[in-house]
């Protein structure tokens, strides 16, 4: 042990970060504890969730630290923090279950709670069973985003409407969460495969820039004249969006935010432009510049996020459609928020890759192994998806008298199923391995995310509760 320490010394033991994270976690827990003492209510699901958030954040920092420096000590503490977070998360699930009197699967808030829980469990399994240690670098930030999103959604326990009072609902949702978490894992593994498969760092640069630019373009579809950005108006009492008339949402305009986001769009899109020019001219200087722009764009993105959070939180703004000032909150725009956070996170991951690629390659399992594990997680996800759809169809048949009604959620679940069926056929019959299979796995997860979030928020239908 002592000898090992001597040998490690030039590499740095990583004590500083561990101590810093430890102090940070302790400090935040202490602050939270003070608040709890003041309110006199210790064990509520929001308190437990807050504790989970603190631990997951600690774990995420340590996993990132491990990703950047490769110090083994980080992983030990990161797992420990993940365990602590998981315990708090389990407590939150149990409390919610007890309080609601039914398993927590009835609203998007409760589903996210379960999703984060499953993600933490799978991270620990992947780390301890498959020895994929850096997986926490991807999954923990996802968990953090999930918990933060949960703070914004309506949390009150609502009684189950008659259609949801069914055992089949629990079967259906449990299967869905397991399947989606397995898909998330296969996505992370496919990304790691691409790194191990010596995919060029420039390609990741282009992909990162494309993703961020697409996100900002999506957000900026709500750009209004005079440089404002329109967001949904929100009724704080009912914790729901305000409606102008039946089916017509009321939007308010946050001034100047549009200009700000337009500037950031230019910054995140610039690396893509530079990449395209580099493809033509092969001038290495362009790539260096692009990497510097990524760094700059992260600073700008954080600034935009802070600006958005400050302006959208409990503000009152004018609307183009009605007279007077209307309130809005962060919860009114979960998509904008998760888009902004997601883009920052993806850019950070790119920086990690740019600076520490060799360390990452050393720490990850071999490309072949990652390819195999990706396939195995999909081999788990696919039967779960099938059963999830079947349980949902059976439940719908008992409730609405029809097992399949081409509702958007149903249709997108079927599309997800088809995409993974395509993956399996290409892999088994056509021998698709490696990169093409990895692209397919990434595409599959994109469709899963759209089915889970996109359909709920963008497309109307029977599946309104989640």
């Amino acid at each position, binding site marked *: 042990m002592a000898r090992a320490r001597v040998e490690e010394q030039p590499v740095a033991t990583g004590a500083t970060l561990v101590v810093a994270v430890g102090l940070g976690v302790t400090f935040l827990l202490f602050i939270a504890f003070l608040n709890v003492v003041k309110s006199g209510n210790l064990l509520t699901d929001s308190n437990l969730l807050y504790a989970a958030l603190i631990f997951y954040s600690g774990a995420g920092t340590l996993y990132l630290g491990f990703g950047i420096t490769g110090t083994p000590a980080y992983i030990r503490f990161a797992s420990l923090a993940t365990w602590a977070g998981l315990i708090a998360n389990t407590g939150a699930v149990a409390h919610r279950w007890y309080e609601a009197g039914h398993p927590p699967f009835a609203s998007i808030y409760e589903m996210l709670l379960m999703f984060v829980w499953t993600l933490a469990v799978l991270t620990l399994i992947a780390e301890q069973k498959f020895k994929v240690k850096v997986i926490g670098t991807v999954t923990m930030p996802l968990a953090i985003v999930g918990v933060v999103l949960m703070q914004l959604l309506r949390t009150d326990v609502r009684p189950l409407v008659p259609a949801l*009072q069914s055992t089949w609902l629990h079967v259906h949702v449990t299967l869905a969460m397991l399947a989606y978490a397995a898909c998330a894992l296969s996505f992370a593994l496919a990304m790691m495969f691409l790194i191990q498969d010596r995919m060029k760092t420039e390609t990741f640069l282009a992909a990162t820039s494309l993703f961020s630019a697409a996100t900002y373009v999506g957000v900026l579809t709500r750009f209004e004249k005079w440089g404002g950005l329109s967001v949904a108006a929100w009724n704080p009492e009912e914790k729901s969006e305000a409606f102008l008339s039946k089916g017509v949402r009321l939007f308010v305009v946050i001034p100047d935010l549009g200009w700000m986001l337009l500037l950031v769009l230019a910054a995140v899109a610039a690396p893509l432009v530079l990449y395209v020019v580099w493809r033509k001219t092969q001038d290495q200087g362009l790539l260096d510049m692009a990497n510097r722009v990524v760094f700059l764009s992260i600073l700008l993105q954080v600034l935009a996020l802070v600006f958005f959070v400050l302006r959208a939180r409990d503000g009152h703004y004018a609307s183009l459609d009605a007279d007077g000032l209307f309130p809005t909150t962060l919860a009114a725009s979960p998509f904008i928020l998760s888009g902004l956070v997601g883009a920052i996170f993806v850019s950070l991951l790119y920086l990690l890759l740019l600076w520490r690629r060799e360390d990452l390659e050393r720490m990850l399992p071999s490309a072949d192994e990652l390819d*195999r594990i990706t396939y195995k997680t999909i081999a788990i996800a696919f039967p779960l998806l099938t059963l999830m759809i079947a349980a949902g169809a059976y439940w719908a048949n008992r409730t609405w008298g029809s097992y399949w009604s081409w509702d958007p959620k149903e249709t997108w679940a079927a599309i997800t199923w*088809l995409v993974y069926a395509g993956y399996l056929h290409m892999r088994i019959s056509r021998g698709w391995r490696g990169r093409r299979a990895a692209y397919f796995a990434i595409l599959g997860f994109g469709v899963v995310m759209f089915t889970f979030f996109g359909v709920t928020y963008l497309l109307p239908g029977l599946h309104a509760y989640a």
Partner: protein
Amino acid sequence: MAASVPRKICQTFANIKTGVVLLILVVILSAAGTLILQRPVTDPDEIERAYSPQVLHLLDGLGLTDVFHAWWFVLLLSLVSLSIIAASVQRFPNAWRFFARPYKSPDKTFRKALPNQKLISINNEDEEAAVSVAERILQKAGFRPERIVREKSFSLFGERNRFSEMAVYIVHASLLLVFLGSNIDALLGWRGFVTLTRGQQSSEVKPQNGSPRHLPFAVRCDGAGQENYADGTPKRWWSDLAIIKDGQVVLRKQIVVNDPLIYAGVRFYQASYGKTGKIDKLVLTATPRDGHAHQEIAIGLDETIPLDSDTRVRLAEFIPDYVVSDGQVYARSNELENPAAHLVVESRKSGQTINVWLPPIPGFEQNASSPYAFEGKDVQMAYFTGLEVSHEPGQWSVWAGVVLMGIGLAVVFYFVHTRVWVVPERDARGQLQLWIGGTANKNKDAFEQRFRDLVEKIESELKISVEAGAEASAAVLTGR
């Protein structure tokens, strides 16, 4: 040449590329079906608000406003089914040969190409003993080895989970079962709606569009209700239903959401519950002007009740929420907000009728001339229960397909067909060797480890038995 055309078509459909192109088309079109507002579910007004008339005309013309019922979508799904059938038909014979006639005695070239193999030299010349050792270990590992006897020697063949080779056909067949079921439902199934109030019966089901459908039996509602949570949101809706055939009640059941009544393949689902805006019973006291004792009556709409030998009363109108405007009485809503009742009091002898309004509405009421004074005590409103009715004769095929698919997928992914061969042979110097080879149809890395363990076990067992054999023969020698 002519004969090869159907063959070519079959081959095209069997091609996995065709299958994938078809699947991509299904994905794109169904995605379009979720992004474009769809006809039967969306209000016509809403669609007209969302799209300009030209665009809407184009979308309607292409069938894109009802993708999932358009002929080309049905055609596409049929092509997918055809592709699955063609692919299965083309591959099945080979797979079946492989399944039905396992490859038991491997030849030289096969043995050379096998990735997992091992040669074990045997010092002892007893071929049978060595093979028996391997046989015992394979038996213990669950391979159920069988002896393949050749002219002079015999070899071993053992395998596990051979059925997993056929599972993929089960999965494809199950998908066809699901398609078959949904096609049967699309052709023979129907859906509709029945609205009943308490005591009412009906044998007519109204579909979303088209003429009503007559059932060979009637359904009667004996009661319906709603229970609420403390915050007023609905917790439970229920209806007591009775099925009446040839004047006889043949089935009774209380249905709730998630628990339908099924009779002769027709399912009745609790779908909605609400006020009809009509009255069930109005409870009144009628006090005669001549000082006799008052009586209490419960009267329904258009019901006539005698009050004495001469006078009778009829409930002509009931308005739950009335408003008077321009000399007319109007109903403002179906809520019981501001009720008004119109009673007609008749005298049999004189044939005279008197209009009584509760409350008295000036200009309409003749309350003062009525021989009875009425006072409203209670209003029992009529509630309707909305029943979704469906007939899905194909659903059993769908569920059978789903169950089969679950089993098939479990076998496809989690049951590995593994085979092991043990063949005694002699090397160039005539030394006896045991050749052991194995293969798995998936999860090959896990099998590699398993194969190594198996070989190791056989090797160590062989050594022990050789030593034991040597000792035994030595004992025999010295014993002499």
